[in-house]
């Protein structure tokens, strides 16, 4: 009887039931690949769980959280991560906007320009890091070779062995690597701005500079916001480029939060503490995303 009614209901579901049924697969998938791992992460963060000792799991409550707050390595890594974000996101935006404007010029052949834009984006992050590590190598690097040929400095600079220079080199690499992604999104935005707006502005006697600030930037704003959100979130997760360029060195001068989590969990096999660190990073990303989403909400 009940079975019959179930089949009946499945065959002719109400509007709500149909909605639930159609959403169920997506919800289950999300639960499996997002909710479950995050839940496990938060659960583990309350335990002393080290794979190296074989001592099993021990509930420690908030102890890991208190340790994180006192951990100088955590604050160092957080500061580095925030600094990289603050430098490379605007950096990539400016560079990306320049590239997009260039690519939007009426070239006779568009594809070489587009290809040049796409290539850095298509290159895996780790490769970019390894390549730039060679560029900045003290003896074999092209950077020092150019500096020497230009006649600057008798002693070669040890780019990746000086905390400030290493940081700068990493930021430069990240900007190079990510500005093409910015440019692609912004180029799409640029192409949606109607020609007629510029023509009207010209008739009214607006200069190129005025056109840029009064038409291009406001019309491009939605694309800029989208690009910034994506870029900021990936910047907070920065791992590959510093890992391959300096391994966080010298010392831990260029260690990011993601690298500290990786080191704690994978090298030290301290899953409990590593999970707690990851929870902090999760909260940081969540806070930044919320701020952006609020802004978008206000704009819409």
């Amino acid at each position: 009887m009940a079975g019959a009614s179930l089949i009946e209901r499945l065959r002719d579901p109400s509007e709500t039931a149909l909605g639930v049924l159609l959403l169920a697969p997506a919800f289950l998938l999300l639960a499996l690949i997002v909710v479950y791992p995050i839940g496990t992460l938060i659960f583990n963060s309350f335990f002393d769980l080290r794979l190296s000792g074989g001592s099993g799991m021990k509930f420690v409550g908030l102890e890991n959280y208190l340790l994180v707050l006192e951990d100088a390595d955590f604050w160092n890594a957080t500061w580095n991560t925030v600094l990289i974000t603050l430098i490379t996101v605007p950096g990539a935006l400016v560079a990306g906007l320049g590239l997009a404007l260039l690519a939007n010029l009426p070239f006779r052949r568009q594809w070489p320009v587009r290809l040049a834009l796409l290539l850095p984006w298509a290159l895996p992050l780790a490769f970019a890091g390894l390549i730039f590590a060679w560029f900045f190598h003290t003896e074999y690097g092209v950077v020092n070779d150019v500096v020497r040929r230009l006649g600057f400095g008798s002693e070669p600079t040890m780019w990746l062995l000086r905390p400030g220079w290493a940081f700068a080199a990493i930021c430069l690499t990240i900007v190079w690597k990510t500005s093409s992604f910015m440019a692609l999104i912004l180029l799409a935005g640029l192409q949606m701005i109607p020609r007629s707006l510029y023509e009207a502005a010209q008739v009214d006697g607006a200069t190129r500079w005025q056109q840029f600030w009064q038409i291009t930037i406001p019309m491009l704003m939605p694309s800029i916001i989208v690009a910034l959100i994506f870029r900021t979130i990936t910047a907070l997760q920065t791992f590959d480029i510093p890992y391959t360029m300096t391994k966080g060195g010298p010392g831990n001068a260029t260690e990011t939060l993601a690298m500290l989590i990786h080191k704690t969990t994978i090298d030290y096999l301290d899953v409990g503490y590593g999970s707690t660190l990851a929870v902090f990073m999760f909260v940081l990303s969540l806070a930044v995303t919320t701020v952006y989403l609020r802004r978008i909400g206000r704009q819409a």
Partner: protein
Amino acid sequence: MQRRNLMKALALAAGMAAAAGTTAAFAQTALRVFSGGANQRPDLMRKLFDQYQAANPGVKIEIETGGATSELQRQYLSTVLNAKDSAIDIYMIDIVNPAQYFGAGWLEPLNAYVGNPADAMKPYLPVYLQSNVVDGKVAAMPGFADAMFMYYRKDLLDKYKIAEPKTWDELAAASKKIQAGEGNPNLQGLSIQGAPIEGAVCTFLLPYWSQGKEFNDASGKLTLDKAAAVKGLNQWLAMVDSGVIKRNVAEVKTPDTVNEFKAGQVVFAINWGFAWDRFQVDNDSTVKGKVGVMPLPAMAGGKSATCVGGWQWAVSAFSKNKAEAAKLVKFMSTPAASKFLAVEGSLLPVYQSVYTDPDVVKAVPWFKDASNVVIAGKSRPLSKDYGQVSDVVRTTTSAVLARTKKPDDGVGEIQSRLARVMR
């Protein structure tokens, strides 16, 4: 009555047949062995396993390989062993790992199979009593050795009539003399590894040990002598200042040392045993036939010491065939096996006696110089958290060599960080 007896006899016969059947089934033991990555030569191990199978028809050995570096292998094995997986019976593990694995209860103590530790380890190189015996139990048996060697340019030392230096100061003086005499600005006196890689742990330990100091006691507790460690790091920095070691030493990785020595740009180089073949066999080597090996210099008043590496055989605590597994481990750790690996793969023997074996000397002549070095070899810190110990030591050493940390602060950091881990 008779009938009953007959039944009994039949039952007995059936029982015996069944028992025989079970014995036959038991005799076919399958052993699964984790045999490291390509550098640990699973191909040669397979040949040894085939020999063992031929002599023991009841045993079938399967090989599993994985992980190109010691760190990757440790990550994999820690996961498998943490899950108490019984699928693998025998593990090949790096010399830095028996303490961790045994401490975690992952390895079967081998005393019951090989006897008491002191006697069992007697025929081997002295380092194994330290590295493979944990809490009075034999945690693993030596498979093959490796060590940090001091390679040098025989031709250049002969040219300037310089004897093999016995102390670091003598080495620095010899380098200066040769560098000045050759007039080649690219010629380095000494090449060591200062990048934050595993080799930098040895870079930290070599001058420290050579003052007769220990990093840890037998129980694994940290016994770092701060003054001596600072002195050791200052020894390297002094050599950087005097131009014996190059300024960007904190960028130098193991292959850099090998390649620069091969290119004829280095007088003295510290590196693992594999480098010898690269210097003498590789087509692009410009130093073929000009290379010597000597014991590492000591600090004035100290004694020579080197970092020993190499791989061990251990039986899993979760294996279902421990007795058979232990038998195989014993076989893999015999002088015959060690000799086979030396002759076929230039893998360093774990027995002092094998270094002077005529067949070995014929196949790998430099091993007779190598034995003096390996006998003075020491094990890196023993800790269940070796991953962390290694990371702290190599990162700090590299930062000191990059001069972003003062030796005093760096050693203080190593001390405070490791005091929590090694106690």
